[in-house]
């Protein structure tokens, strides 16, 4: 190791110190470029920028979550989590991955927050319960709400990992018993990057961090997600799209259409309203993604995906409350109809009487 202190090294220096060659680094950058949907040639630009970037301190807070996002993170193969932790970032607090526990762990968090005040990246997974002063989720006796506010104060930027942190996710699903909200509903004065998904694609989590280190704050879509990773509509990029165009659909999960790989729209696929990199980046080291494995997209990277009317109900089917409402409407309609008919016939009678009176009068006059 060089005489330079580890955290003062640029990413390039840190990589070189770890024996990563320039070609190796270029490979890493090519994979990152591919992930950001940049042309392969952009790898050189990424390499140049990453060379000079400083390794940032990262504090990772887990709130109302299932640890699925962390599980996903640890499966990132390119850049790999090991590579990222040791070379590109300095992960100073992550209560699932760190060795320290109890008071020691909390002390590490406080120390990192103090030392890198104003400069660290705050990563949050999980939503934050607001009901009853946030008592429904606490860490070391501190509510998630208080911890988020404290940690956000000194952060350069916040990355909300997973649909829970980004939009409330499962804890916020109807009827939302704990009053769970997204990070963006609490913190208003810091840049927030939403990395949604339940969980997000492993390499997208690390890719967003790499993108942030390379190019700074990324361009976000209207839901606060980096366009580079969430610019693709699943339906537009789906290899089963031709079957949709031809009107060839699987009707059940085991019919002939399903076996032939036809479109899963009728089985509730939410691909048309979902934005994510699944169709190209895929999962499990690029092996497959839900639609390729025969199940429709559940739209997990979109807000309120739990409450979109059912995973197996087609997108075009309404979220109608109840048939009773419509039946009641029919009754009311018939009643109004009868009423107006009665009114109408009495009106008819009155009009007839009026005409008759007028005719009689005219007859009188002509006499």
């Amino acid at each position, binding site marked *: 190791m060089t005489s330079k202190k580890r955290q003062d090294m640029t990413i390039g220096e840190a990589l070189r110190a770890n024996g*990563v*060659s*320039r*070609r*190796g*680094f*270029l*490979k*890493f950058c*090519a*994979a990152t*470029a*591919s992930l950001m*949907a940049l*042309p*392969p*040639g952009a790898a050189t630009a990424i390499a140049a920028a990453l060379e000079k970037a400083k390794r940032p301190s990262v504090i990772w807070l887990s709130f109302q979550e299932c640890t699925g996002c962390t599980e996903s993170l*640890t*499966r990132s*193969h*390119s850049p*790999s989590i090991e590579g990222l932790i040791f070379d590109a970032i300095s992960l100073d607090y992550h209560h699932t991955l760190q060795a320290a526990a109890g008071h020691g762990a909390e002390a590490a968090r406080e120390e990192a927050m103090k030392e890198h005040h104003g400069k660290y990246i705050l990563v949050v997974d999980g939503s934050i319960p607001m009901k009853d002063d946030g008592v429904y989720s606490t860490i070391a006796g501190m509510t998630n709400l208080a911890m988020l506010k404290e940690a956000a104060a000194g952060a350069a930027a916040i990355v909300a990992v997973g649909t829970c942190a980004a939009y409330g996710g499962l804890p916020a699903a109807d009827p939302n018993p704990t009053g769970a909200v997204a990070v963006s509903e609490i913190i208003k004065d810091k840049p927030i990057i939403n990395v949604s998904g339940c969980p997000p694609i492993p390499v997208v989590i690390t890719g967003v961090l790499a993108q942030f280190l390379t190019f700074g704050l990324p361009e976000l879509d209207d839901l606060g997600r980096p366009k580079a990773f969430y610019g693709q509509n699943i339906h537009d*990029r*789906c*290899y*089963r799209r*031709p079957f949709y165009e031809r009107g060839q659909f699987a009707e059940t999960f085991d019919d002939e259409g399903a*076996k*032939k*790989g036809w479109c899963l729209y009728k089985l509730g696929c939410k691909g048309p309203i979902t934005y994510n990199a699944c*169709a*190209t*980046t895929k999962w*499990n*080291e*690029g*092996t497959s993604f839900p639609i*390729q494995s025969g199940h429709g997209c559940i739209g997990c990277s979109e807000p309120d995906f739990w409450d979109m009317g059912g995973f197996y109900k087609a997108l075009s089917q309404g979220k109608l409350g109840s048939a009773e409402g419509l039946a009641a409407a029919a009754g009311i309609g018939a009643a109004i109809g009868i009423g107006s008919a009665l009114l109408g016939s009495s009106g008819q009678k009155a009009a007839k009487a009026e005409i008759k009176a007028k005719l009689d009068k005219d007859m009188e006059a002509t006499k």
Partner: protein
Amino acid sequence: MSTDARLIDIPVISEPAMTLPSMNVEPILHEVRHALRRLLETGETSMIDLRAMPLAPGEEEKIRTRLGTGEVVIQLDAMGPSTLTETAYSGVWWVEHRNPNDVVTGLYIEVAKVPSIVEPDRQDLIDAVARLNDDLENNDDE
């Protein structure tokens, strides 16, 4: 993660559906043809990122088969192995990058005389001269 239990080793055989239309194979081959012409006429190199395409199951293999195999295979060992294979069409390379866990991290068709990653960087050449100088000056074996 250990490398001895990989997904690919699980003996599941999935038969690609016979009726799947290959939407991507022909267009990609056309793109390669255009790129090859550009290389010949202007010297411009191109790279097609196969992992950025919504390829249907089996399409990657189809493209690989159609391109065939040429005379040159280049192996890299840089943050995991890489194989750069010349296809049956001169100037068209099948580039496969793997990470240290032997997982494919990038798959490209590169159209160039020699794949760009093979050529050493200028800074590396400068470093090489310096290191060799160093070695010759400080090594008195002979």
